C-alpha cells in the first residue's frame, strides 16, 4: 500500500511539473481554446472559455490516475489508492501554483516582464475567472476527483477491454496506413504499383491548378524541403555522415543563381536555365572542396565542423566586407525567373511544377544509385567503415561522392528557393534550415522517400495549417527529436528495411566480443 502511495505521488509530481511548464509555455491556454472550441463549451472570448481548461485538467487527472502498474490493476483498492494519491499531489501542486500566481497578480507584480505567458488575462483564465481561493480550490478539486476516477476506471473491467480494443484499432489502422501492408501489395504486384504511380502523377499534375496561390506557395516550400531531404538522406541515411552544415550548399545554390541572374550587385543577368545547372554544379563542387579536408574525421567531429562551416558561410554573406559582392544583409533582389518556350514559369504554379519535376528526377536518381555498386558501398561504410575498406572500397572517395551528391541537391533546392522568392538574403540561410531538413528526415524516416514527404508535410506544411501553434513549432520539434530518438528512431513512415534494422530481437544479433571470449582462452 505504501508503495502504491509513493508511486502515485511520484506520478502526480511528474504530471504536476510538466503541467506547470505547460502553463508557463502558455500551451494550456492555447490547448484549452482548441478543446473548448472543439467541444463548443462557450464563446471564443479567451478569459471566459474556462470550460476548455477544466476539460484539459480533468483529462490530465484521469490520465495520471490511470497510470498504475499493470500488475495492480485487478485490485480496486490498489488502483483507488494510486489514483487518489496521484490526483491529490497534482491538485496540491497546481493549486498552490495557481494560488501563488494569483496572489502575485493581485498585488500587481508584473510577472509578464519575466514570464512572458503570465499576463493578467492568463492568470484570470487559470483562476477560471473566479477569486484566488476559489480558483485554486477548483483546480485542486478537479485533479483529486479525476485522479480518483482515473484509478477507478482502470479497475473497471470494461475500461480495460475498451482500452485494449481502442489500442488494437489504433494499431491496426496505423498498420494499414503506415505499415508495409500497402507497400507490400504494391511491391508484389507490379501492375498495381504502376497504377498507383499513375494516380499519383495525375493528382500531382492537377493539384496546382485547383489549390490557389497561397497553397501553391506553401506546397512549393514543402516541395523544396522534400528535395533537400532527399539530398540529405543520401549523406546521412545512406552514407552515415552527419552533415549539420547542409544550409551552406543551399546558400551556395541560392547565391549562385541570385548573383548571376539579378541586376545587382553583379550585373550579369544570365539566363535562368544555364545558371540553374551551374548553381547545382558549383554546390556539388563546394561539397567536394569542403569534403576533402573534413571527411577524414570521426563522425561527431564531422557534425560540428560542418555546422561551423554553415555558420562561416552565413556570417560571410551578411558581412559588410563581402557586401559589394554578395549584397550584404539586404541580400539580392530581382532574381530572374524561368520561362520555357515563351511560357513564363515565374508564378507560384509554375514553380510548383518545376519543384515537382525536380523531386521526381531526384527520386529516380536516388533509386538508381541506391541499388547500385555505389549505393552498396555507401551502406557498407555506414555499417562498418573498417570492413568496408577491407572489401576494397575506397571509403574516402565514396564519402566525397555522397557529400557532393547531397550538396548538389541542396544547391538545386537553394536555387529554386531563391528564384521563386525573387530574393535571397542571409536570413534565408540560418542553421535552422539544416536542422529542419535533418528533423524532417528523422521524423519521416531515414532512407524512405514517402517518409521524407510525410516529414516535410509535418514540418513545413502542418505549421501552415495550425497557425496559432506557430510559436510552439520549434519547441515541439525539439522535443519530438528527442522523443523519436528514444521511442521510434526509424521515423513515422520508415523504409521497410530500416524498420527491420532497428527493431530486431537481441539474440539474433552478431556475436559481440564478450560472447567470443568464452572459447578463446
Amino acid at each position, binding site marked *: 500500500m505504501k508503495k502504491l502511495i509513493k508511486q502515485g505521488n511520484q506520478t502526480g509530481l511528474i504530471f504536476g511539473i510538466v503541467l506547470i511548464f505547460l502553463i508557463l509555455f502558455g500551451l494550456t491556454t492555447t490547448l484549452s481554446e482548441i478543446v473548448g472550441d472543439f467541444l463548443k463549451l462557450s464563446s471564443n472570448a479567451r478569459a471566459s472559455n474556462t470550460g476548455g481548461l477544466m476539460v484539459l485538467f480533468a483529462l490530465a487527472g484521469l490520465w495520471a490516475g490511470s497510470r498504475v502498474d499493470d500488475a495492480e490493476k485487478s485490485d480496486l483498492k490498489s488502483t483507488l489508492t494510486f489514483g487518489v494519491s496521484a490526483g491529490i499531489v497534482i491538485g496540491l501542486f497546481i493549486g498552490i501554483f495557481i494560488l501563488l500566481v494569483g496572489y502575485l497578480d493581485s498585488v500587481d507584480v508584473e510577472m509578464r516582464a519575466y514570464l512572458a505567458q503570465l499576463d493578467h488575462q492568463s492568470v484570470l483564465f487559470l483562476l477560471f475567472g473566479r477569486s484566488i481561493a476559489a480558483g485554486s480550490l477548483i483546480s485542486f478539486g478537479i485533479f483529486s476527483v479525476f485522479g480518483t476516477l482515473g484509478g477507478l476506471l482502470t479497475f473497471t473491467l470494461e475500461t480495460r477491454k475498451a482500452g485494449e480494443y481502442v489500442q488494437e484499432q489504433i494499431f491496426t489502422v496505423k498498420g494499414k496506413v503506415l505499415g508495409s501492408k500497402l507497400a507490400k501489395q504494391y511491391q508484389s504486384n507490379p501492375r498495381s504499383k504502376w497504377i498507383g504511380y499513375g494516380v499519383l502523377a495525375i493528382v500531382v499534375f492537377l493539384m496546382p491548378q485547383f489549390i490557389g496561390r497561397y497553397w501553391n506557395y506553401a506546397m512549393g516550400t514543402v516541395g523544396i524541403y522534400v528535395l533537400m531531404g532527399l539530398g540529405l538522406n543520401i549523406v546521412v541515411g545512406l552514407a552515415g555522415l552527419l552533415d549539420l552544415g547542409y544550409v551552406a550548399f543551399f546558400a551556395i545554390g541560392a547565391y549562385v543563381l541570385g548573383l548571376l541572374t539579378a541586376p545587382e550587385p553583379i550585373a550579369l543577368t544570365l539566363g535562368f536555365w544555364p545558371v540553374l545547372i551551374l548553381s547545382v554544379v558549383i554546390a556539388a563542387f563546394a561539397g567536394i572542396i569542403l569534403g576533402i579536408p573534413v571527411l577524414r574525421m570521426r563522425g561527431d567531429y564531422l557534425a560540428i565542423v560542418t555546422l561551423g562551416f554553415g555558420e562561416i558561410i552565413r556570417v560571410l554573406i551578411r558581412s559588410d566586407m563581402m557586401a559589394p559582392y554578395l549584397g550584404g544583409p539586404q541580400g539580392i533582389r530581382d532574381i530572374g525567373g524561368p520561362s520555357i518556350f515563351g511560357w513564363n514559369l515565374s508564378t507560384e504554379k509554375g514553380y510548383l511544377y518545376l519543384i515537382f519535376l525536380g523531386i521526381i528526377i531526384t527520386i529516380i536518381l536516388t533509386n538508381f544509385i541506391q541499388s547500385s555498386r555505389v549505393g*552498396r558501398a555507401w*551502406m557498407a561504410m555506414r555499417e562498418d567503415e573498417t570492413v568496408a575498406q577491407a572489401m576494397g572500397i575506397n571509403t574516402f572517395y565514396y564519402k566525397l561522392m555522397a557529400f557532393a551528391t547531397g550538396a548538389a541537391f541542396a544547391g538545386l533546392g537553394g536555387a529554386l528557393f531563391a528564384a521563386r522568392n525573387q530574393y535571397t538574403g542571409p536570413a534565408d540561410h540560418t542553421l535552422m534550415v539544416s536542422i529542419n531538413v535533418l528533423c524532417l528526415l528523422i521524423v519521416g524516416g531515414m532512407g524512405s522517400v514517402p517518409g521524407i514527404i510525410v516529414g516535410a508535410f509535418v514540418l513545413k506544411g502542418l505549421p501552415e495549417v495550425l497557425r496559432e501553434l506557430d510559436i510552439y513549432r520549434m519547441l515541439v520539434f525539439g522535443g519530438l527529436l528527442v522523443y523519436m530518438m528514444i521511442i521510434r528512431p526509424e521515423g513515422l513512415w520508415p523504409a521497410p528495411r530500416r524498420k527491420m534494422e532497428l527493431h530486431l530481437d537481441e539474440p539474433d544479433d552478431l556475436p559481440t566480443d564478450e560472447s*567470443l571470449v568464452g572459447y578463446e582462452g
Partner: protein
Amino acid sequence: MSILETRNVTKRFGGLSAVDNVSIQIPKGSIYSIIGPNGAGKTTLYNCITGFYPADEGDMLFQGESLLGLSPDKITRKGISRTYQNIRLFPAMTALENILVGAHPQLKSNYVDAILHTPRQKREEKQALQDAQELLNFVELTGKGDLLARNLPYGEQRRLEMARALANKPAIILLDEPTAGMNPNESVIMMRFIETLRDKLGITILLIEHDMKVVMGISEFIYVLDFGQLIAKGTPGEIQNNPQVIESYLGRGDV
C-alpha cells in the same frame, strides 16, 4: 615461388613488439597455418599484411610486389581477402548485399553509370547478382539471400563471411579462426570446405587457428608465433614434436 611473403616484419605498440621480425613464405596453392597462444601477434600480422597497421619495419610482398604503404582497399583489390575472428558482416544489409559488397573490386561501373543507370551498369549488375547467387549456393545458403546478415545463425554468418571474401575472386584468403565457436562436427565440415576452396577454386589459404585438430588436419606447413616472435616452423609432424612449441602451449597450460 611464394605468392605471399613477409620479410622481417615488426609492429610495435608503445614499447611492446606485437609482431617481432617475422618472415613467412606462402607458396601458391598451399594451405598454411599460423598458430600460437592468445596475444601472440597472429591477428596483428594479418592487420599488417592487409594494410590496417603500417608495419614499423620490414616488407610484405604479394606476387613479388611490395604492399608497403598501400591502403587496405588497394591491397584487397590486388587479390587478398580476409575474414575476421569475431565475424564482421554488415549486419543491417542482406546476405546477398554483403556478397555484392565483397564483389566491389570486381565491378567496374562507376558513379556516373550508377546515376544514369546505363545499359553497361544494368548488364554488370545482372551478372554480379547471378555470381552472388552462385556464391550463396556454394556456401549452402541458398534461399537466404534476402535475410539481413544479423538474422542468420552463427554458423551461417561464418559461411556468409567466407562467401563475401570469395566474391573478390582472391588469389589468397586469410582466415582468422574460421572454426571458432563450432562443435567438432561443424569443424570437420569447415575443414572440408576450406580444402574445397583450394582444390576447386585454386585459392591459396593462410589460416589462424586454435583448434589443433583442424590445424594438424589440413595444414601443409605451420608457423608458430609466441610473444610476436616466430618460434618454430615446419610440417604438422615436426611441429607436434617440437619441444619449444610444446612448452609454449603446454607449459602455460593453454589448450
